[in-house]
């Protein structure tokens, strides 16, 4: 019983991390039709910011990581994507690869490619007892933080003027602009939000693994991207669900597969992904109106 609950909580917590990552990718895809692989480097560089600020008070480290991720997200939009606003999606995709590689190599150049230990918030590694079951505090915190972020994001999108503009732009950007919605504001906001999401994921991952390394974001983003695809590209609830399912499935497979098959759990995840795409190519929660870009 205890083992089962622990596994489920672990699956939900890892699923939440991938859901947050997939949301960051989904937000940008929604308004730009851009699959931003450089989202991974937002996560990585937020983690290195934590490393650089190590020793400072915790709030300084957290806000520092968030601020750097936001600024970097806005900067990449300005430098790499805005000049290509009317280019086709393939060009944007290649530009995002370029940004991703550039930032990775830059990090290696500046700080080296070796793992660095970072003992951030070690107290979250403690076990807590909940209804007679021992759980890791970090997993509970990860789930709670994810719920808070998803709730706040939903509120922002549903209840604010800019949120409405973003939803309209995601559905029909050209018409939204005809009505006076400012493309630059909407896109900048989407990038800023993706920066916040990346920083949150980064902090949680660093606490969990205790290390930072230049490729940490890429690995997350590739899996989360798969999540956004099975969820339904262009749909935010789809991205969150898809990311969650992919993350949770890999943990459940790890626990449920016979030991000699565990090494291949990713293969099983991708078989499941292939099946979803075969039977629901539009994704689990398809986007409402996938219109062509501006």
């Amino acid at each position, binding site marked *: 019983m205890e083992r089962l609950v622990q596994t489920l909580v672990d699956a939900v917590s890892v699923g939440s991390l991938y859901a947050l990552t997939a949301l960051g990718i989904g937000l940008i895809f929604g308004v730009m039709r851009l699959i931003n692989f450089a989202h991974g480097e937002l996560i990585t560089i937020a983690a290195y910011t934590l490393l650089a600020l190590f020793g400072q008070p915790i709030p300084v480290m957290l806000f520092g990581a968030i601020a750097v991720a936001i600024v970097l997200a806005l900067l990449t939009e300005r430098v790499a994507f805005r000049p290509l606003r009317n280019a086709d999606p393939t060009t944007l995709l290649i530009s995002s690869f370029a940004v991703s590689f550039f930032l990775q190599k830059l990090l290696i150049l500046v700080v080296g490619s070796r793992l660095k230990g970072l003992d951030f918030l070690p107290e979250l590694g403690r076990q807590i007892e909940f209804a007679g079951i021992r759980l890791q505090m970090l997993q509970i915190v990860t789930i709670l933080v994810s719920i808070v972020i998803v709730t706040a994001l939903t509120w922002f999108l549903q209840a604010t003027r800019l949120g*409405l*503009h973003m*939803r*309209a732009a995601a*559905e*029909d950007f*050209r*018409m*939204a*602009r*005809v*009505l*006076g*919605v*400012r*493309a630059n504001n909407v896109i900048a906001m989407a990038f800023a939000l993706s920066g916040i999401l990346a920083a949150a994921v980064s902090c949680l991952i660093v606490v969990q693994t205790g290390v930072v390394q230049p490729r940490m974001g890429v690995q997350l983003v590739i899996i989360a991207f798969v999540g956004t695809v099975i969820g339904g590209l262009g749909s935010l609830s789809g991205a969150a669900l898809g990311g969650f399912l992919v993350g949770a499935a890999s943990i459940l497979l790890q626990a449920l597969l016979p030991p000699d098959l565990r090494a291949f759990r990713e293969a099983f995840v991708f078989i499941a992904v292939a099946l979803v795409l075969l039977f629901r190519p539009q994704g689990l929660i398809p986007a*409402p*109106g996938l219109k062509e870009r501006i």
Partner: protein
Amino acid sequence: MSASVPLLAISGLVVRYGAVVAVRGVDLQVGEGEVVSIVGPNGAGKTSLISAVAGLVTPAEGTITFAGKPLGGIPLEDVVAQGIALVPEGRHIFASLTVTENMMLGATIRRDAQAVAADVDRFFAMFPILGERRHRPAGHLSGGEQQQLAIARALLSRPRLLMLDEPSLGLAPTLVDQVYTLFKTIRDQGVTILLVEQNAERVFAVSDRVYVISGGEFGLSGSAGEIKSDPRFDAAYFGVRMREAASGL
């Protein structure tokens, strides 16, 4: 024309898509308070013409002046703030957003939240079906209801000029009547209307002046009465088709 300076003045407008010329140097003037229509067959350049005014396409040549100010080069999202609203062909309702949200988007450029709310209520009174479905996704509305929503959304920016691109397209005749009845109400509120239609008969009843376009050029123009009774109308309207037929296109 009612005013000495027209509200909208287009001169020498050319619209090109690559090698294809959609509009070949047209001149058009719309006075404040007028209802002016552009009629012509499919592919005559009607949509290109008003798309140029709306900022959706950049003219290759010519000038567009609105209320005495040139519109050239201003970004798409700034056109509506000049006082120009568009009901595009195909309506372009935000299907996943609610009816109310679609209307609020129409008021994007306004900052007077209370007056916007009052205007939205007024439209719900004018179009009761929209009021009933205000919290439903707009994609669930019928074509006629979506057209009403598209018009209400455009009017919520409080435009001086309302441009409508084929508002009767895809609607049942009774719904077209409803939409056309609206134009009188809109005009009575002081909004100038520039209407683009294939359906010439309907247009004559509501317009002050009519331009007939074919092959990207105006063939005839004049008061609705003159054009309606002009024996050259059919030739002007179908001109391009005859030419196309003759050239084997």
